[in-house]
Structures are given as C-alpha cells and as structure tokens.
C-alpha cells in the first residue's frame, strides 16, 4: 500500500513538473525543471528497488547533463524567448504517442509479476549462480561487467566516441583551422 502511495505521489509530481516544463518560456527554467524531472525519475527507480539505475539517473541525468545544458544555454544569445508558434501538430503528435504507449502498457505484464517473460529466461540462472561463483553480492555488477561484458565495452566505446565527437566539433583548434581556411580562401579569391 505504501509503495503504491509513494509511487502515486511521485508520478503526480512528475506530471506537474512536465506541465511546468511545457508552460515556461525561459530556457534556464526549462533546464532546471528537466533536472528536477530526472531527479523525480530516480526517486521512482529507488521506489522500484532499482538502486543502480536510480544512482546513474541522479548522477548523470540530473547532475552532469543539467550542468552541460546550463553551459550550452549560457552560450546562446540573450533576451530571446522561446515562442510557441503553432501548437496543433505537436499536440496531435503527443496525444497519439501517449495513446500508443497506454495501449502498450495495458498489454505489459503486471509490475513485479514473477511469471513475466523477463524473469523466466536467464535471470533465475544469474541470481542463483552468481553469488556462489563470484562471491560478489551485487548481482547488477556481475551482470554488467561479467555476463554482459561485451555490452559494457560497447557502452564505454560509445561514451568515448561521443566525447571525441564533441571535442572535434567544439574545441577552439577546429575553429582556428576553420577561420584560417576562410582567410586562405579569401586570399585565393583576391
């Protein structure tokens, strides 16, 4: 019962935050509210006993990405407010997507159902085997680093590549090269 009450409270807070994200026109407030939104999401994950996911959501979602969004917003020209020009297409899109999601949710197995397909395939083996074999109590770590080592390697490479991409796009070296290129072009034209 408590579980349901807390979940209800958190989800209604999520709805309120989403509504205010929709309403505000100031960019910084939208960034701050998005941070609050992800923090609420991580509270929901804690309530669902997914502590590792909640930890990641709190650290990455509401911590670092909020800072990065603030930094990006600080680079934008000031004084311009976000104008909502034509709401009609986005409302139709949002309503249809949420309808599809609601239909899908109705077909999902119930929360915590022990006979759900995801709990029957490999999870029982992992849960039974990992504690005796690894002597590591946190099964999530075992699955992440050992059973699913390839996936985690892929994730690390994705993060690495994302960092490389941002460095290549934004660092001043690239800008210098670009400006030099333009200058050279102008000289050639003359």
């Amino acid at each position, binding site marked *: 019962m408590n579980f349901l009450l807390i979940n209800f409270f958190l989800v209604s807070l999520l709805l309120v935050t989403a509504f205010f994200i929709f309403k505000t026109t100031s960019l910084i407030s939208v960034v701050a509210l998005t941070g609050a939104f992800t923090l609420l999401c991580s509270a929901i994950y804690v309530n669902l006993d997914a502590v590792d996911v909640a930890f990641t959501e709190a*650290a990455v979602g509401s911590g670092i990405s909020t800072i990065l969004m603030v930094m990006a917003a600080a680079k934008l020209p000031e004084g311009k407010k976000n104008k909502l020009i034509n709401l009609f297409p986005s409302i139709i899109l949002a309503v249809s997507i949420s309808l599809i999601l609601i239909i899908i949710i109705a077909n999902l197995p119930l929360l915590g159902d022990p006979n759900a397909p995801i709990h029957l395939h490999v999870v029982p083996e992992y849960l039974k085997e990992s504690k005796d074999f690894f002597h590591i109590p946190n099964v999530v770590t075992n699955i992440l680093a050992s059973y699913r080592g390839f996936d985690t390697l892929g994730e*690390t490479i994705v993060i690495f590549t994302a960092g490389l991409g941002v460095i290549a796009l934004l660092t001043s070296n690239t800008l210098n090269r670009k400006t030099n290129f333009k200058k050279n072009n102008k000289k050639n034209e003359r």
Partner: protein
Amino acid sequence: MRDKISSSPVLSVVSKILFAPIIIFGLYVQFHGDYGPGGGFQAGVIVAAAFILYSMIFGLSKGETLVPIMINRYLMCVGVLLYAGVGIVSIFLDGMYLDYNVLSSDPSTGQHIGIILVELGVGITVATVMIALYHSFASFGEINE
C-alpha cells in the same frame, strides 16, 4: 569569460571544502560497486563533478592547470584500452575474450580482478569524457588567434 572567477568567498571556500570528499565518495562508489549500488559509470560522473565544480568556481584556466587537456584526452583512451586490454590478456591466458576466469588460478578471484579492472576502465573513461565535454562547452566560442 575564461578567467571569470567567482567573487563570492562563500562559493570558493565551500567548493574547496567539498572537493576532496566528492572525490573520496567517487572512489568509494567505484570500488564498493561490488557490494552496493554503484560502479564505474556513476563513480566516473561523481569524480568528474568535483573537477567541474572546481573549474566552475575558479575559472577554466585554473581547471586546465589541474587537469591538463592533453592528459585528459590520453586518459580517455587509457580507460577504453584498459577495458579492451583485459579481454586481450584473457585471450593470451588461453581464455576467451573478456573471460575473467583465467586471470587468476582461482576462477572466482579471477572474476574479482577482471570486474575491478573493467570497472576502473569504465570509470576513467567516463570521468575524463565528462571533463572534456565540460571544457569543450565552456570554452566554445573563444577563438584564440
């Protein structure tokens, strides 16, 4: 923008006090990930948060003295290579790629060693990529001729 140092003494004192505990908490999350929630991804972000806080309060050039950009970029590669290298080592020890059982005479200890090394690689990469992201965003738009 680059050397805009916060004038408030409260911010600079508090960030100086918080710097070490944040990094210690990051290391705790990194190496306690086997026993509680946490691991490389979260720990990397927490450690990066300490350095980002430092550069936010004391200016970007001081942050660059603390973590030089080139060292940061090399560490990005070191993390991924450490992860991939554990797999290569296990191939040389007659195992399969990323099979940690062969890293030690006892398979269980081998798994421990493998998991700790792999998580360390993830942590290094995530932390340095986050610092690099912050520095790229913060220094964007300054063209030094």
